[in-house]
């Protein structure tokens, strides 16, 4: 009798264990599957979002560059473009304060130079004082330089040049140099080839 009871008890336990096991496995399965799948999916999503953002940024930068070039081409087309540059090679005879430019009697630029900007010019910098459009033909440039000359006297000198605007961009350089022989500054306008 006791053997039979023990056997039946063991059988019942075995039956119980068998019924419990697979259910647990089933319960664990989906969770385990979810746990293993989640991080992988979301990191993949983030990576592709990041790539999208980067490519959008690249597009925006490239668009900005194209717009800038287009704007320059529309406003200052290369074939009618004319630009004027200032350069200095002076030390003792002239301290530049401002430059005034007139083309064909019309004022196109009036630039005041700060101490910092003068320092840059003296170190070899070249300043684009004006860029504009001109028709093909003969034009007159009048440049007036204001500053302090020898003995810190107020100084005002002009330079005039007639130039011919052809097809293609035109670049003119207004150069201020020391003329040691006369102990005076010299103002010259020259065309860039």
């Amino acid at each position, binding site marked *: 009798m006791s053997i039979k009871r023990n056997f039946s008890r063991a059988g019942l336990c075995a039956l119980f264990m068998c019924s419990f096991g697979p259910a647990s496995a089933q319960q664990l399965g989906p969770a385990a599957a979810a746990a293993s799948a989640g991080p992988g999916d979301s990191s993949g999503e983030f990576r592709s979002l990041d790539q999208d953002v980067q490519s959008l940024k690249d597009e925006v930068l490239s668009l900005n560059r194209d717009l800038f070039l287009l704007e320059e081409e529309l406003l200052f087309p290369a074939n009618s473009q004319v630009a004027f540059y200032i350069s200095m090679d002076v030390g003792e005879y002239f301290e530049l*304060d401002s430059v005034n430019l007139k083309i064909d009697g019309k004022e196109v630029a009036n*630039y*005041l*130079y*700060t*101490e*910092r*900007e003068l320092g840059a010019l003296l170190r070899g910098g070249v300043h684009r004082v004006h860029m504009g459009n001109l028709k093909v033909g003969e034009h007159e440039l009048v440049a007036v330089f204001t500053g302090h000359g020898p003995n810190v006297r107020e100084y005002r000198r002009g330079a005039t040049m007639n130039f011919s605007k052809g097809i293609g961009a035109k670049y003119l350089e207004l150069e201020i140099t020391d003329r040691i022989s006369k102990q005076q500054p010299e103002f010259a306008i020259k065309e860039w080839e």
Partner: protein
Amino acid sequence: MRRMRIALLGVLLAAMPGLFAASSLASSGLAGQPAPDFVLKSARGTNLRLSEYRGNVVMINFWATWCGPCRQEMPLLNDLYSRYGRVGFSLLGVNIDDDSRRAMDMAEELGVTFPVLFDERKEVSRLYQVEAMPVTVLVDRTGKVRHVHLGYKPGYEEKYLTEIRALLRE
């Protein structure tokens, strides 16, 4: 006739706040925008360009010799300049009189030590949409307009102090 005058006066009085608001909106629309760059001749004879002050907190004060509140305000601005000039604060007083000599006389009379610039052609005041006097603009270290004050009343200098200190701390 009398009724018409009263009606006209009423219309004018009703419109005044709107007109003032419109003019105050003009300058205050600059807040949050990059401060328009300019260069002007100073009373000392040098040319000063706003963008060369980038990195400092800059106060631009537009004033005129005929402006009573400007006379009240300028010595107080000078105090701010003396106090904070060493720690990255710059002040530019832009005068819009037709005759710069009167401006120089007034600045000397008031004991102003900050740079006084002359905008005889009114180009800079147009750029900053100045329509009433005085106008005080505060520009942060990155060159952005952060505060615009229209007019002056006693006590405004306390606001300036708070704003300058906050911008210096940034």
